[in-house]
């Protein structure tokens, strides 16, 4: 089920009705979270519950075996990796890789039909597979590295793995951050309930009011339904998409963090105003933090990180970014998206970017614009249906042509784009000005802001329903 549905409202009401009771004892708490999470996940398609249970069982027992059979720890670790990467390979990448093989053989004059041989069940990507697989993998990797002890109770493990607020679209929580929290009865106090409410309200506002209203222009543009095709139109569309994907995903993360707060748990921040980044490196420390730190800890650093010279550091970064692109989807457009980011990051390292600028508001603004420019170009590949479309859009962006009528046909989308930009600017001013910060803390301002967010997320909600990151 999705957060922005009536069924979820009922679900969350029922969940918290019995939470206090279930929360008292460890076992009942874990079982309660696990069952609720399975209902939440199984609401889409109960058959895919077997996948999450299967992959979880492999990692739970592999984790135990790594500690209990030290002579075979490597074997059990590899088994766990194979289980996780295997399920990703089957459900997410089999069709993509089969099409590459088919095309390769076709170029050599041999007709293969691997893509059509793939069983139908493997063509459906289970919702959130990339998220829970990565979460499960981090558990065994940390045990293998002696940074974590395996849990004794299987429901303790599944409560961590399947915890419904973040199960399908993150943030990717680490076992070491949450297993400990699950060991105690944590009661949410009034402050946590209020903060949780604020996060949920902001999250819904970001998702249903801003991101969903921006989807109108973005969907029209990329499906070819829009009657515009000028540079002006594509720059506006790409700006809208940049804010759509940010608010869509950040909205989900905020709702997840808010619900966790109501339960008494703490999830780390997943987005930290990425479009206020002063460099591409800074962008990646603010965007999808739980994933970028996952790649940093489990891919980039094990590859050698920046230890073995500059060239190797570049190479490791490129590998990490390409894998990150592939994580988002089985398509060349995502791989190119990763490569474009790697290219800009490399350039930044070479020219040592930000250090050459003096720090003031004008240079801040110039850097925001410059980073946003690079990110927008990369987003073209992320959103395009195929590489040809992306190339056409990039070409059009630099023709500097204009068209009339865009602002009236997409007035609503542009209004919400302005609201999105305004909300980021407000945050920027809050960081820079003590006065703005103090105003935002006044009780009435806070109450009005939260009420307005709830009201807007219901009455100004846009047409899109699903969260974009569910497909990953």
């Amino acid at each position, binding site marked *: 089920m999705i957060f922005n549905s009536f069924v979820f409202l009922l679900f969350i009401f029922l969940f918290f009705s019995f939470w206090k009771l279930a929360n008292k004892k460890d076992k009942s708490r874990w079982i309660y979270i696990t069952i609720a999470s399975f209902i939440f996940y199984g609401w889409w398609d109960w058959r895919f519950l077997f996948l999450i249970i299967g992959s979880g069982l492999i990692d739970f027992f592999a984790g135990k075996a790594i500690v209990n059979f030290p002579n075979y720890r490597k074997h059990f670790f590899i088994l766990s990796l194979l289980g996780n990467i295997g399920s990703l390979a089957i459900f997410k990448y089999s069709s993509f890789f089969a099409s590459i093989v088919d095309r390769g053989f076709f170029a050599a004059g041999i007709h293969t039909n691997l893509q059509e041989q793939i069983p139908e069940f493997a063509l459906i990507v289970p919702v959130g597979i990339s998220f829970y697989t990565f979460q499960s993998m981090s558990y065994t990797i940390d045990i293998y590295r002696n940074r974590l002890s395996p849990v004794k109770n299987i429901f303790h493990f599944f409560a961590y793995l399947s915890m419904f607020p973040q199960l399908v679209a993150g943030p990717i929580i680490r076992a070491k951050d949450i297993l400990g929290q699950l060991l105690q009865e944590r009661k949410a106090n*009034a*402050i946590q309930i209020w903060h949780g409410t604020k996060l949920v309200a902001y999250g819904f506002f970001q998702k249903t009011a801003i991101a969903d209203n921006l989807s109108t222009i973005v969907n029209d543009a990329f499906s070819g339904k829009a009657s515009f095709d000028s540079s002006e139109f594509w720059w506006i569309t790409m700006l809208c998409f940049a804010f759509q994907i940010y608010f869509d995903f950040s909205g989900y993360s905020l709702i997840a963090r808010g619900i966790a707060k109501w339960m008494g748990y703490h999830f780390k921040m997943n987005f930290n105003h990425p479009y206020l980044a002063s460099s591409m490196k800074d962008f990646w420390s603010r965007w999808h933090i739980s994933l970028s730190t996952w790649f940093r800890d489990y891919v980039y650093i094990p590859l050698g990180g920046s230890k073995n010279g500059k060239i190797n550091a570049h190479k490791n970064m490129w590998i990490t970014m390409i894998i990150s692109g592939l994580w988002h989807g089985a398509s060349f457009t995502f791989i190119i998206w990763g490569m474009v980011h790697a290219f800009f990051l490399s350039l930044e390292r070479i020219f040592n970017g930000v250090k050459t600028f003096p720090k003031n508001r004008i240079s801040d603004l110039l850097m925001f614009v410059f980073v946003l420019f690079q990110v927008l170009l990369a987003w073209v590949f992320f959103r395009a249906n195929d590489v040809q479309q992306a190339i056409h859009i990039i070409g059009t962006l630099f023709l500097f042509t204009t068209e009339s009528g865009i602002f009236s046909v997409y007035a609503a989308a542009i209004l919400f784009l302005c609201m999105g930009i305004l909300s980021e600017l407000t945050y920027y001013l809050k960081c820079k000005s003590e006065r703005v910060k103090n105003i935002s803390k006044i009780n009435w301002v806070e109450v009005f802001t939260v009420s307005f967010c709830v009201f807007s997320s219901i009455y100004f909600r846009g047409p899109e329903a699903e969260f974009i990151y569910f497909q990953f």
Partner: protein
Amino acid sequence: MNNRYYKKLALTITLFLTLAGIARIVKKNEPSSEIFRKHFWAYKVHSNKKYNVIFEGDSRVYRGIDVNSFNKGVNINYLHTLNFGFSSGGHNKTIYNAVENKLLHTSLNIVVLGITPFSLTPKAQLNEHFLEEQNRNKGETIERMYFYPFLSYFEPFNIQKLLHPDTVTYFEKFHKDGWVESYKVPANSNEALTSYKIEFENNQVSDTVVAVLLQKVKEWKNKNIKVYAFRPPTTVNMETLENNISGFNEKEFIKKIEMAGGKWIEIENRFNYNSYDGSHLHFYSAQQLSYYLGKKIKEDIDPK
């Protein structure tokens, strides 16, 4: 300390409810409802209610046939009529099965087929609209079927319309019997022509589709189900376009369907009806047409 936060929470809820109340008053006269639209389609597909008369076809049927006016025209008390039209709906087995499931199977059963050239093309056979609704997950279907009166309190504003009042507005009222009472402001009786030209490129009336339809008509006749067919009226330009590029031969089709046991209803003064977009009928024309069809069917089943 705790009190302060609970107070904030209480104030937030109060302020939200006040804003929601104001929104409810402001929104009272909005032309179309998204919540009722969702309920309408869910009910049309998933309701277990049975009928003696079922109209089947595409959007020209669900916008063009007012069940109430039809019932007045046919004037038989015990008839329960359903408008079972869908967007880009094609005549095929999927729809025929759904129609049979909705029939009451009493002494008088009638299926009325709305024949548009597009509904006989391969593209229409996908029946995407019907299948999308039929395959919708249970939770969402239950939400749409039963919780819509509650959800209608939370109908969103149309921001685009608020910002640009001159934006084309579709006025739609969804009736439980399957009719969508509709019109558009401003109307443009040539609007649909371009999209239909595109639709018929590489997508012509299919002999196979017609053959399957005729077979079904024979089958229904043998099961004592009366089958009527008619061509929903539209504009002169649209009909000329369809006759020229869709591969539809009306005279030929009438012959075939009558040989299969169906009855063709010829619409008199077919260009006197008013279309707001060059394809669909304005609601008052839909009422006239439906009454006319009711009268014609009454004449056939009860010639006195």
